């Protein structure tokens, strides 16, 4: 007779009280496979922890977003936000789907060029563009989104020096009812600075103003904010046409759409509160269509959404290192991925699941990462199944920002694999090694040796 599976023995205090009418089922369904590929086998083959990205989910999400906008507006263009995830394999899926590149630094700009994106289809955002970056962007006919007056004057100087007509857009910040107002990027709408900047560009006679851009914030749950933003940009476009007879080529609504992750402290899960692409699309396109812009001059609608396009496609799988009790009797579970890999755990209550089948038993647990640092808390408290050392877990919706903001801190960054449309894994970023780190270092001669 085969033996039974052993589960850690536990005892839990029953806290009698009024049951919440919003009670969420406590049972966490295990996730054993991603796109038909066994997580346990992936961990055996590629090591633990492991980032897993799903090509199927990326393409499906992109097509859903594109359909939401293109079914409501005649001319829609997505531009992949490199900073959200600039692993080349990820970028290239979006480029294959038709997205341009949206970059915010010289490094990202070169990355897009090396991926084969034509210069004229790269949107160059951000407050930090060096003179060298600007020169390259101008000679490539890239779309330069101007962030501040110092940059505007640099571009005017360069246009004369290079005898070129840079293609520019003005970045506009505004009050859309979201607080705090993101007013550090671009020129303000309400105080008239954005209109001043537009006039300055037009007066230069050496720049081609082809667009207006805004990015109202990040993880925005209110679609109304986008309707207001679209209306304000449209009013600038109308003023521009009235004064200069210039019809803009595009209006870029930026990104910031919420993903289905749950913000820390949120009462309802993100799966219930995040608006759909259709909701965002309805708000933005109706804001533009109902504006005073002449129907035959409707500009192209550019979208730079990053988080909502990639978050769902990313998983972080790994192994339980240990379980222990804290001084107050609560359980602590230590897993092999911490805030070094999962930067987003600072603001999300990530959805963490067991990989293997578990019983209905759960206990109040704090999930710690492996770092020797007190801040390394992946989940402050959650009702979690009784995982043991060596059991596996998988964290959902980690595709956005983690592969760009992860830290080389205390340990190496692990392998990243992508599951293709058939669920077959491909290594797309190799695990770092001591050589990777040491290859960047130099030791002065007098510090090369020591006697202990």
């Amino acid at each position, binding site marked *: 007779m085969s033996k039974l599976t*052993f589960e850690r*023995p536990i005892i839990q205090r*029953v806290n009698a009280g009024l049951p919440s009418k919003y009670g969420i089922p406590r049972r966490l369904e295990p996730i054993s496979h991603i796109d038909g590929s066994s997580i346990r086998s992936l961990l055996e083959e590629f090591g633990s922890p492991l980032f897993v990205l799903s090509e199927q989910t990326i393409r499906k999400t992109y097509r859903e977003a594109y359909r939401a906008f293109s079914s409501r507006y005649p001319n829609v263009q997505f531009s992949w936000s490199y900073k959200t995830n600039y692993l080349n394999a990820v970028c290239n899926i979006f480029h294959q789907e038709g997205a341009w590149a949206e970059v915010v630094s010289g490094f990202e700009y070169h990355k897009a060029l090396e991926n084969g994106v034509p210069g004229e289809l790269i949107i160059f955002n951000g407050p930090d563009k060096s003179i060298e970056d600007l020169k390259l962007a101008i000679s490539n006919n890239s779309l330069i989104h101007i962030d501040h007056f110092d940059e505007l004057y640099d571009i005017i100087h360069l246009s004369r020096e290079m005898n070129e007509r840079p293609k520019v857009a003005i970045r506009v910040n505004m009050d859309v009812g979201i607080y705090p107002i993101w007013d550090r990027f671009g020129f303000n709408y309400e105080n008239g600075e954005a209109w001043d900047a537009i006039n300055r560009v037009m007066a230069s006679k050496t720049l081609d103003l082809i667009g207006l851009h805004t990015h109202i914030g990040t993880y925005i749950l209110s679609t109304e904010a986008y309707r207001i933003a679209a209306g304000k940009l449209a009013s600038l476009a109308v003023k521009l046409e009235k004064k200069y007879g210039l019809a803009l080529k595009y209006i870029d609504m930026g990104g910031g759409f919420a993903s289905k992750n749950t913000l820390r402290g949120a009462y309802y899960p993100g799966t219930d509160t995040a608006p759909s692409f259709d909701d965002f699309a309805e708000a933005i396109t109706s804001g533009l269509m109902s504006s005073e812009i002449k129907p035959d001059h409707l500009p192209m609608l550019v979208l730079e959404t990053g988080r909502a396009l990639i978050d769902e496609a990313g998983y972080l799988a790994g192994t339980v290192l240990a379980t222990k*009790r804290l001084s107050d009797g609560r359980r602590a579970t230590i897993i092999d991925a911490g805030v070094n890999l999962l930067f987003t755990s600072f603001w999300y209550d990530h959805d963490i699941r067991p990989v293997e089948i578990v019983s209905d038993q759960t206990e109040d647990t704090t999930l710690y990462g492996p770092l020797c640092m007190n801040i390394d808390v992946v989940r402050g408290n959650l009702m979690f199944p009784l995982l*043991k050392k060596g059991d596996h877990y998988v964290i959902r919706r980690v595709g956005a920002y983690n592969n760009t903001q992860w830290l080389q801190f205390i340990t190496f960054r692990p392998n990243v694999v992508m599951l293709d449309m058939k669920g077959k894994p491909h290594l797309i970023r190799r695990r770092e090694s001591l050589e990777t780190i040491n290859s960047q270092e130099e030791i002065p001669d007098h510090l090369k040796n020591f006697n202990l």
Partner: protein
Amino acid sequence: MLKIKNNIAISDSGFVFDARTGDSFTLNTTGLEIVQLIKEGKDYQGVLQVFLDKYEVDPESFERYYLDFVATLKHMNLIEGNGED
């Protein structure tokens, strides 16, 4: 020898009631089994043998989880004082 306090009632389904404090607790299957074996008067070796026969577990892992579990019972005041095994 470990001894569960006299004022503790334990049901067959793993529900635990402390008549002295009014606190109640729940045990999972393995937890209930250990508590019942302790009540029967089995020492650690006796409990271990039952588990090795019945479950897919090695002695080292079992010891680790057993000691942790017993410490929790103590923390919850369910075990007689000085009940060292």
